[in-house]
């Protein structure tokens, strides 16, 4: 959390995250570029430019695959949530790796001709009416443009400027990029491979992305949806756990996180104002709801971040009918204070002032 924009708000976990990421990418490239040629018994080596292009292209695909696996893995097992924490750096690095791949391709296959290499890239192959021989480079260009847009808008400034819902939708471009990369590979290098190890690894990577997303969707498909209208049942009062939330999906698709803090219930929107992270999967630390993605914090009664921070999320009204906790589906404007609902028999204490993160 920050009240001003800085290029990167470094902390030890981010350093570790980036170091691991760099080590993994460096290991991939080093083994591909310098070790694997020793295992090849070719009479003449693959051109260094093509070898480099393949290494960086394959690396970008693997990085994208890992990035897309983190999200559903974290939905299935919360222990993967820390891998989400600095995923933007992973994405930006993937963009640079992909740009390097395109640079080698452009400066080799499309160079040395009388026409400009960028023009050549667009007109050299115009076999649009066929699958085999289709100008697969176009899929690569589209994917690269998507990745560059995502990298350029990855900073919190853009998140704030575009608003989290718009930013989030924009960043779904990652799926278009991945699909495009898959088409780029399928119609390109896979069409001429005699050794199918790469084919198998490509299919395994793509299958992992698909299966994990389907599994995450499957695990959440039974999430009960409330009916449209007033006051929605959430659950019996005894089902709440101190410091944690129950999440209720409303008829309009929004989710509400109902927290029990010091014997009193309060409800806020489930989507964090930062990146729409699932606040209901967080916990209360120092009397503040803490987002499991990036640690943004909110006062559960008002939906406001503690001063000097300015983030706010909508709040909801609650009531207790017998033992049943109910929430009203109409959201209050972000930052609206709502009196918490005390649970009968629960001990209530004055809320201490939360420490800024």
């Amino acid at each position, binding site marked *: 959390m920050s009240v001003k924009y800085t290029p990167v708000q470094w902390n030890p976990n981010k350093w570790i995250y980036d170091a*691991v990421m760099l080590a993994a990418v460096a290991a991939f490239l080093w*083994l591909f570029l310098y070790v694997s040629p020793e295992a090849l018994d070719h009479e003449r080596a*693959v051109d260094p430019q093509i070898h480099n292009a393949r290494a960086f292209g394959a690396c970008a695909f*693997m990085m994208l695959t890992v990035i897309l696996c983190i999200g559903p893995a974290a939905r299935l097992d919360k222990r993967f949530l*820390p891998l989400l924490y600095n995923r933007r750096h992973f994405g930006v690095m993937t963009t640079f790796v992909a740009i390097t791949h395109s640079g080698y391709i452009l400066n080799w296959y499309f160079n040395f001709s009388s*026409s400009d290499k960028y023009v050549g890239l667009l007109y050299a192959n115009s076999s649009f009416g066929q699958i085999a021989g289709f100008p697969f480079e176009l899929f690569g260009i589209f994917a690269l443009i998507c990745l560059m847009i995502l990298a350029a808008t990855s900073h919190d400034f853009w998140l704030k400027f575009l608003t989290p819902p718009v930013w989030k939708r924009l960043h779904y471009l990652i799926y278009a990029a991945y699909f495009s990369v898959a088409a780029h590979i399928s119609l390109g290098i896979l069409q*001429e491979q005699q050794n199918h190890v790469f084919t198998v690894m490509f299919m395994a990577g793509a299958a992992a992305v698909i299966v994990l997303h389907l599994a995450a969707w499957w695990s959440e498909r039974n999430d009960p949806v409330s009916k449209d209208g007033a006051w929605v049942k959430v659950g019996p009062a005894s089902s709440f756990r101190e410091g944690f939330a129950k999440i209720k999906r409303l008829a309009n698709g929004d989710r509400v996180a109902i927290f029990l803090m010091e014997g009193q219930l309060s409800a806020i929107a489930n989507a964090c104002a930062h990146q729409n992270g699932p606040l209901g999967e967080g916990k209360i630390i120092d009397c503040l709801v*803490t987002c499991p993605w990036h*640690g943004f914090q909110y006062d559960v009664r008002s939906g406001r971040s503690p001063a000097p921070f300015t983030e706010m999320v909508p709040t909801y009204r609650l009531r207790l009918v017998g033992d049943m906790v109910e929430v009203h589906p109409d959201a209050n404007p972000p930052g609206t204070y709502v009196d918490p609902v005390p649970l009968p028999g629960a001990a209530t204490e004055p809320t201490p002032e939360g420490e800024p993160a």
Partner: protein
Amino acid sequence: MSEKPFFVGYLPAPGPLRTFLLSACVLLIAGLAGAGFLMGAAQDDPGPGAFRFDYGRQTVVGVVEMTPYPVIHVVEGNDRIKPGDSFMMTAGGKSGVDGRAMPLNGQLAQVSGVVLERGDLYMMQVRGGRNGLQAAEGEAPEIAVEPQGRWQLTGEICDGKCLAGAMRPGRGLAHKACANLCLLGDVPPIFVSSQPVLGEEFLLVTGPGGTRLPREAYDFVAQYITAEGELTRRGDLLVWEIDTDTIELSE
């Protein structure tokens, strides 16, 4: 209910989560490293083609023939290139030498450059300007032209230069756009036959009636095709005049 460790980015990771995260990190690094090695070691052999800089600069005299792609039929060779050999010529980069060869069509010329070699496929990248290609003194002998009839062949159209070793690999669909750029730049196209044709695997491919390779054929570059056309032996070189109406994709 058990207390699950909760990670907050700007706080130290909870103890119970550290082992899991450490395992995930090791798995990520090892997984990507393994993938890098396997993918790198799974690359196909790009073939034996190469620029033969080790041969040094080659200079020979021969008869220039526009087939319509420029070919030299060697009359005075050297230690490596013998009289009677025929090979295609190209310029640096993705460019042909049509402009320089056309005025010398049917005449003796001195050719100088570096050889590209892939098996029995020879091509010469001639030097720039007159140093690479210039008229030579003497009477140009008649070049033998032997029609071989109509042939149905199966194989792949490539640009001759990349195939001969300017790029490794210099064929296949991933290389299609590059091959098209070379062909558009007047680099001679080659047909790589799946079966030897009169003892040759590589044939110069042209359009019918000694025309340039038709643009319709560009869609089939780098693909495995079957087509028919008239075959002619010109000097030491087989020239196949592909009939684009007969092109079919092969399995």
